[in-house]
């Protein structure tokens, strides 16, 4: 069974129809990549999956998104609990202006963990999972803003991991990073997929082809093609997918 199931999802920003009858099954413990030109709706789609769209003014959503079979727009749903399960990492590394430790402990503290020893454990474990611990273990209590861009982004991943999510959404997580930091994050995602379901929006098609198991191509608010990454990149079925991935997009 798929982890997240999206059926007939439509989304409007005011008058603008930003997602048009999109359907997608996101599989567990796989990396799913969303590709497509700017403004095609891929980030919009991603942000719908943990209801970050709730904060956008004038947004209207129709359709069904279910996580493990539960409707995320359902009546009794607490968006904060949803976001504990479906974490998010953003394009620009956005650590809070506080220490490395407090950044990672932020999520657990929201969800009521106060015990110092427990927090220490979580922080260490999360930083280790994000392959950052060894680099910054001596700087846990200095400001996170002093880290390099790549370290900050891995810190943001660690911060997301600290709340023990099941799904991690990443919105172009490496577009602001240099190639080395990018490959570190890619390696990390490949490791994390054993435990988490990962959905990544990327502008970098090589990145999608390197790390994703599944790829969905978005265009003008529609999902044009969705399938195994190797299939999409070697033999796309739709002409528009082919034109986009081969760089012949008009």
């Amino acid at each position, binding site marked *: 069974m798929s982890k997240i199931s999206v059926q007939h999802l439509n989304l409007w920003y005011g008058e603008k129809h930003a997602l048009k009858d999109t359907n997608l099954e996101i599989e567990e413990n796989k990396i799913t990549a969303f590709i497509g030109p700017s403004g095609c709706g891929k980030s919009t789609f991603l942000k719908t999956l943990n209801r970050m769209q709730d904060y956008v003014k004038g947004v209207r959503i129709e359709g069904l998104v279910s996580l493990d079979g539960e409707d995320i727009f359902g009546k009794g749903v607490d968006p904060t609990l949803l976001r504990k399960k479906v974490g998010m990492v953003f394009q620009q590394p956005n650590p809070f202006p506080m220490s490395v430790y407090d950044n990672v402990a932020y999520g657990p503290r929201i969800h009521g963990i106060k015990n110092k020893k427990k927090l220490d454990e979580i922080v260490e474990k999360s930083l280790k999972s994000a392959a950052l611990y060894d680099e910054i273990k001596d700087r846990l209590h200095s400001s996170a803003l002093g880290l390099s861009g790549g370290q900050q982004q891995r810190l943001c991943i660690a911060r997301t991991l600290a709340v023990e999510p099941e799904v991690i959404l990443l919105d172009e997580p490496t577009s602001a990073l240099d190639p080395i930091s990018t490959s570190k994050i890619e390696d990390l995602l490949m490791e994390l997929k054993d435990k988490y379901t990962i959905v990544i929006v990327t502008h970098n098609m*090589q990145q999608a082809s390197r790390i994703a198991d599944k790829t969905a191509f978005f265009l003008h608010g529609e999902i044009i093609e969705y399938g195994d990454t190797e299939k999409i*990149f*070697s*033999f*796309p079925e739709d002409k528009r997918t082919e034109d986009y991935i081969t*760089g*012949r997009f*008009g």
Partner: protein
Amino acid sequence: MREQYNEDLKKLNDMLVEMGNLVEISLEKSKKAFKEQDKTLAEDIVRGDQSINNLEHDIEALCFKLMLRQQPVATDLRVIATALKVVTDLERIGDQAADISEMSLSFNGKYPYKTVEHIPTMMKVCREMVHEAIRAYVTKDLERGKRADAMDDQVDVLFSEVKAEIVEILKEGKENIDDCLNYLIIAKYLERIGDHATNIYEWLEFLMTGELENTQ
């Protein structure tokens, strides 16, 4: 968009067409050299094989350049990957054509071309098969490719017949044993040429459908 890339891909296609033509000509000439025991023509073919080899190198270099600079995906990826494989098969066909013509100069009998009855047929079928496979590949005609592929069975049958014939000739002791072995080797070359033509068809199939058969 991607003008240089498109130009390079077109150039790649042109080079493949050119190489296909050269291989066909070489094969045709080697048939003639064998048939007419034409020493000059045979030497010509061996020289001609060098230009096929050179073209193979150029195509490979262009493919590597395209992979390096353009990171091809989708159709482009398949075009370039199959080009790399197909040139190898073409080059082998060229080699074998040259080997046949080289070998055909060493016969002593009067009409070596007709001594083994099925060799001329086999040459004709192989010649036809290679032609069809190459044409199918450059015109991206899957149906035509299938027809070429079907001819391989014919080539295999002919090879067994040639083998039986040679065994018969040897038993009768009518011919020089050396010559007989050379006939067999020529037949084997022809059979290999058939296999390479099949490969070309299989790469065409991958190019068009994205599916990989068990290519040899």
